[in-house]
């Protein structure tokens, strides 16, 4: 007996700018699934979509803002976080999500990232890390592992990469997690947790970039990267982020590393503002 039911799967179509699809990302690109997780997380947590603002910088991941049917801002390279800071401070009712890539958030925008974490400002940052500048054709990024080949490290990368969870947790974030695109269910849950958590939340998503990074690093198909994640990922929730370094073809430590309650920027700001208003009132009475 077949009992036909309504489609219960949270359909993300209502959150997509369908008139803009198919999107510009390459076949096998990891950004799409991450964007999907984000959109499903909205339903999962029943967040009012009208209250969400998505801010992106420049690059492949920066294009996420253009495909979601939410208030969305595609800003300049590296400046998504300060733009988002202005939005959330001017309207604390907003649920601000910054969606950008590793080059945008950590290289050109690295200063803003650590300062936003330091402030513990109420926003969620989703960093799609594909180890290179995909939009410009695959140049070395701040997270590219040692020895990785890119179009600007043709003999191998000679720089040390950032360990993003370590960087961001040391800077003061309330929530830090890392997942790969293959850990799609955990990722969706993590984004949902991050979006509902007060304070600064950061999620690094290791994502395939088959057409540029993968092609130069023996993962020419998205599936090659996915097999690598399947084989080498180690889930270690609560692990010390400093032990989560990434190496070329090495293990990928994933999990929820940090989930703590800390007073947010708003908590202190509200207190100080009310103090200022009381002082002003007292002076006005005199």
């Amino acid at each position: 007996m077949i009992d036909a039911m309504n489609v219960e799967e949270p359909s993300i179509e209502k959150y997509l700018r369908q008139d803009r699809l198919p999107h510009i990302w390459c076949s096998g690109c990891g950004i799409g699934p991450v964007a999907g997780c984000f959109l499903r997380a909205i339903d999962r947590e029943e967040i009012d979509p009208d209250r969400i603002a998505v801010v992106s910088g420049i690059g492949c991941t920066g294009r996420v803002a253009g495909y979601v049917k939410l208030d969305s801002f595609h800003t300049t390279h590296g400046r998504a976080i300060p733009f988002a800071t202005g939005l959330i401070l001017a309207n604390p009712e907003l649920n601000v999500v910054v969606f950008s890539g590793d080059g945008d958030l950590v290289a050109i925008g690295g200063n803003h990232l650590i300062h936003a974490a330091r402030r513990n400002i109420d926003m969620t940052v989703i960093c799609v890390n594909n180890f290179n500048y995909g939009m410009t054709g695959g140049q070395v990024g701040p997270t590219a592992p040692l020895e990785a080949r890119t179009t600007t490290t043709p003999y191998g990368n000679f720089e040390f990469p950032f360990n993003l969870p370590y960087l961001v947790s040391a800077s003061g974030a309330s929530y830090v997690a890392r997942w790969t695109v293959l850990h799609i269910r955990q990722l969706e849950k993590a984004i949902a947790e991050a979006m509902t958590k007060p304070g600064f939340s950061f999620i690094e998503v290791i994502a395939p970039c088959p057409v540029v990074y993968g092609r130069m690093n023996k993962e020419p198909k998205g599936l090659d990267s996915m097999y690598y994640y399947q084989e080498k990922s180690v889930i270690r929730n609560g692990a010390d982020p400093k032990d989560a370094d990434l190496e070329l073809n090495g293990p990928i430590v994933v999990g929820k590393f940090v989930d703590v309650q800390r007073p947010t920027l708003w908590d202190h700001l509200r207190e100080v503002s009310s103090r200022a208003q009381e002082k002003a009132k007292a002076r006005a009475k005199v």
Partner: protein
Amino acid sequence: MTEYQELTGKFFINGDVACAEGAISAGCRFFAGYPITPATEVAERMSTRLPQVGGIYIQMEDELASMNAVLGASWAGVKAMTATSGPGFSLMMENVGLGVMLETPCVLVNIQRAGPSTGLPTLVGQQDMMQARWGSHGSYEIIALAPISPQDIFDLTITAFDLSEKYRIPVLIMSDEVVGHMSEKVVIPHVAPESLLNRRRPEVPPGEYLPYKTDVGLVPPMAVAGEGYRFHVTGLTHDERGYPVMTADAQDRLIRRLVDKIRLNRDDIIKYKETQVEDADIIVCAYGITTRIAQFAVKMARDEGIRAGLLQLITVWPFAEERVRELSLQTKAFVVPEINYGQIVLEVERCAGGKARTILVPHMGGGVHSPETILEAIRETAQ
């Protein structure tokens, strides 16, 4: 947001403080900045005043962040401002372009010091005038105002907010260290909120709203985040929907509108003040602090029997082209004193078009002209 606590009356304050008070009176409720001499006092005053009136002050990690936070706040529906000086102004340039492209109302104050580079941080300059016009990449128009006194910067800050809201564009206040640090009497009047201009809001329901569709005039109505309009805006060349379109046609349509919304409204935007130009053989064209010295020089020249006049540029950008062209037909020469080695003089010379001579009286910065220097230039020109 709490009730606006008005601060009215007569005060003896410097230009930076007057600027901050002007912003508060104009309804500015967000300031993001970064300390820099000689603009720091604007930030300091805002950090005291904004919390009192229910606004937000935040010191960002640099000027790039400050400018972006201001744009973000404006898109959340709050009037926002930042203040800086030379090096910080350079850092803000890219995102002034973003402000122009997204059509974001905001005000950027530049208390100019002498450059290039770190230059003379504590001393006066008027050396960013061309950067104000052309500093961000691409083809665009901008509005820049030049105040001459603390009272003037108070008044012009209100004007700046009005213009930015009306035309949806970042408006620059190109002041200088002397005006910023000089203390004078400033009268702060009651500014009725109804007298202030606010961006036009969309009148259509969310489903029908297109962020860059113009109805009346060239300035589209502006939705803000969190109201359910679910709009997309991008620094990429875009169409009426706000969607990126990578074609020469889309670029042509967009840039023409962004430029024309200012150019075609220049009569409304451009303000200048003339003294004794009707019969003048020589017109001193000045802006900012230099205007006040030029006033002396013109008076001294008149006392000597030289028919001199003064054209003060209140709005520096867009430039008062038509007026300078008209004046070039009735005067013999323009004398242009400025605290740089020749910037606005190029515009005057271009508009004079050979009909009247144009003489630059430069000052490299670190001080202001003496009236005698300008008088000397007037005398030489008169011969």
